[in-house]
């Protein structure tokens, strides 16, 4: 029997830039085939070609042995290929059912929508995949995690034979990931072929039957999880070997940089007390919604708190705005760099110095452009941002380089304490290693660093101590070299 989907010798260039070269790839019915590679390796382009978004320059697409040529997303879906996009294709102001069946709504005479059947169809779909989601609720009222599941339900509703999931877990909490994997197992059992694109090798090894690795637009290897290891996959992905994803831990001083005492803001968080020492990386783990981001934003002055105190280097602070926080030396690296952290349409240079413009102001408030250029150049070098042209707009950079420039922006403010919220979300392994190293370098230079991450291996690999949040409270503070993922999870959920 031919594979559910086969891609043969695909070539694709954008202008003079070659993105895919002679790429072949196949996924069988009832198989989960993981596709991994660094950002820019060509994974998304490949899947966009399969999903009907881009045209290919050369090569063949075969669906169950039949050559196909989908002209757009819609046609691909009707053929039985559904792509679950990394950036959700849902509209927040419409109901769940309307989103799932847009353009396919059951109708009465003259194209009028049959609302009852529409909602009933959606309800049946959710029953089939075993989730409790209301068809009549507005999509915007659900969390990103649930929206991801709705997106997958939408893909399933096309009776897809091939479902392509592009980074489906990047916004999910651990329990939501479990639920997603349950759904994937069911789909597998029904004979659906699944292409699973992910940066998270832990998940890839958990769910995949086969793993294919793309590097610089070429397929460099395909293997089975049982016959390989994360280290080997990483080697294939980057073409060089990494001794370790995480830098060696440093020496933590005794001096307390940031002291948080009984910080409360019901109902978001209660009685949060901890101290951050000079040279320390303090990890904050917990489920999405446990109050981690809220506490960080309160410390940074972006949100208010009801009671409690914050002291920086022994000095009691009363910060009311991010501006004051930055002046005092507290910097917050935002969770969603696209929304809050970077000015996407502005140049790298403007972004890098934007948090510290005060340092470059001369008489009468005139900006000192020479010094700005010099500082920006140093930051580009120090953080290894590529391409090394700080007059490019941030838009044009890859995700990893965007993240590195966000870090550069924070550093130009000379922070005493850095709060990094999901610093490596959605970036590839190579960029991840560099960000980890940059955070550790900072700590080694005496900055206190707080890392909030939903990826447990990252929290554990990077941090000197780990604080676990649960439902707005600290449920444990763990120290030592032998903290296990299981231990952290236990504190996070029970």
């Amino acid at each position, binding site marked *: 029997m031919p594979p559910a989907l086969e891609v043969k010798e695909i070539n694709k260039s954008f202008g003079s830039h070659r993105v895919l070269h002679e790429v072949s790839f196949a996924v069988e019915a009832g198989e989960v085939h993981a596709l991994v590679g660094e950002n820019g390796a060509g994974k998304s382009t490949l899947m966009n070609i399969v999903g009907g978004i881009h045209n290919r320059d050369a090569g063949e697409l075969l669906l169950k042995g039949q050559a196909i040529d989908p002209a757009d997303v819609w046609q691909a879906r009707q053929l039985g290929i559904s792509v679950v996009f990394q950036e959700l*294709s849902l509209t927040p*102001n*419409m109901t769940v059912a309307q989103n799932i069946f*847009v*353009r396919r709504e059951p109708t009465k005479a003259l194209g*009028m*929508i049959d609302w009852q059947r529409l909602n009933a169809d959606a309800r049946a779909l959710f029953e089939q995949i075993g989730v409790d989601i209301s068809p009549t609720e507005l999509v915007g*009222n659900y969390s990103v995690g649930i929206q991801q599941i709705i997106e997958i339900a939408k893909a399933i509703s096309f009776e897809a034979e091939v479902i392509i999931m592009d980074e489906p877990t990047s916004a999910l909490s651990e329990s939501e990931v479990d639920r997603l994997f349950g759904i994937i197992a069911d789909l597998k059992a029904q004979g659906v072929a699944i292409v699973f694109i992910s940066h998270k090798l832990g998940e890839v090894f958990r769910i995949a039957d086969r793993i294919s690795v793309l590097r610089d637009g070429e397929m460099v290897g395909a293997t089975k999880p049982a016959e390989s290891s994360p280290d080997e996959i990483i080697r294939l992905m980057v073409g060089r070997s990494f001794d370790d994803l995480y830098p060696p831990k440093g020496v933590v001083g005794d001096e307390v940089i940031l002291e948080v005492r009984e910080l409360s803001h019901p109902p978001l968080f209660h009685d949060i007390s901890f101290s951050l020492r000079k040279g320390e990386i303090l990890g904050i783990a917990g489920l999405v919604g446990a109050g981690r981001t809220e506490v960080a934003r309160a410390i940074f002055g972006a949100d208010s708190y009801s009671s409690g105190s914050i002291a920086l280097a022994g000095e009691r602070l009363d910060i009311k705005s991010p501006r004051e926080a930055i002046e005092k030396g507290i910097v917050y690296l935002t969770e969603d760099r696209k929304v809050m952290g970077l000015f996407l349409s502005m140049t790298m240079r403007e972004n890098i110095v934007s948090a510290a413009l005060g340092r470059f102001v001369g008489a009468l408030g005139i900006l000192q452009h020479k010094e700005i250029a010099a500082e920006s150049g140093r930051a580009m070098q120090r953080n290894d941002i590529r391409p090394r042209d700080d007059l490019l707009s941030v838009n044009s950079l890859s995700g990893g380089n965007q993240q590195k420039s966000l870090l550069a922006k924070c550093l130009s403010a000379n922070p005493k304490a850095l709060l990094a919220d999901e610093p490596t979300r959605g970036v590839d392994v190579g960029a991840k290693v560099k960000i980890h190293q940059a955070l550790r370098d900072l700590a080694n230079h005496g900055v206190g660093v707080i890392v909030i991450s939903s990826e447990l291996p990252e929290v554990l690999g990077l941090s000197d101590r780990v604080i676990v949040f649960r439902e707005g409270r600290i449920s444990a503070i763990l120290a030592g070299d032998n903290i296990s993922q299981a231990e952290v999870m236990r504190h996070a959920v029970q």
Partner: protein
Amino acid sequence: MQDAQAMRAKQAADAGLLRRFSLETLQVGGLALAIVVFAIVVQLNFPVFLSLPNINVMFVNFLPEAIIALGMTIVIITAGIDLSVAGIYPFSAIVVGLLMLAGAPIPVAILLTLAAGAVVGAVNAFISNKFRVHPFIATLAILLILRGVNIIITGGSPVSGFPEGFAIFGQAGIDMGGFTLRYSVFIWLGLALLTGYLLRHHRFWRLSYFIGGNRRSARMSGINVERYLVFVYMLSGTLAAVAGIIVASQFNAANNSYGQNLELRVITAVVIGGADLNGGAGSILGSMLGVLFIAMIYNAFAMSGISTYWQDVVVGAMLLASILLGEALKRRRA
């Protein structure tokens, strides 16, 4: 501690009340309430306010705005804007008049004029799609061009002297003793009911909410957004032409000065009616109530003898209030 608990319980109850109704229901309901209160206050001071003849006057005066607001609502739902309606409106009054004066039969003149409105709308969408210009700029340019064209083709003087049968669209009506209920009111009513129903229930028309809510995701769902916007702006242009034909009939004349600032009155009404300039929200019912509210304010001021300059102050304040209310509701529900 108990206080905190009580507060949380109250917050939950508030949220429950807010969630029971959709944002649209709350906004349209609030506007309807404001209209009733306003009407009662004015009525107590000027007993003629709610008399049928006066209501009829309100309708007739704001009929063009009401018809154009139908198209504008859909344009705004798709996160667009159409300023050119204030150019198409006098343009189509002039075109229908010139065609009839040139000897075209009335139905032919009307069809050609409607087609002209649709073509202008298509040009709006084409410019905006093709050159990736914000519709504000594209339709502003077309508005300015049409204003100039209107003066050029009329030489600056009114066009008049239309055939008798043309009066049916804007002048003639049913004699209600005391006043004439014009047929044009039924044209508006029919169009409003039709667009309102289609926008709520028709598969194709509803796509406008998807496009305005998240253009990228609409594209991902296989919607040809550019082509859809051509339809939307053609609709808006055609409806502006309908309004222009009615006004030409009403005055038995066409003048390039018709419709000064009409685009702003229409947008104000649509936004007061709950439409979101960022797209994705809005309703025909809300927009019609918005037009009614503005019509009542203008009428009441004219009646009261207070300087009519104040009416714009009130309309502006109402616009602000409705936007602030909408934002507050959104935040409470989030």
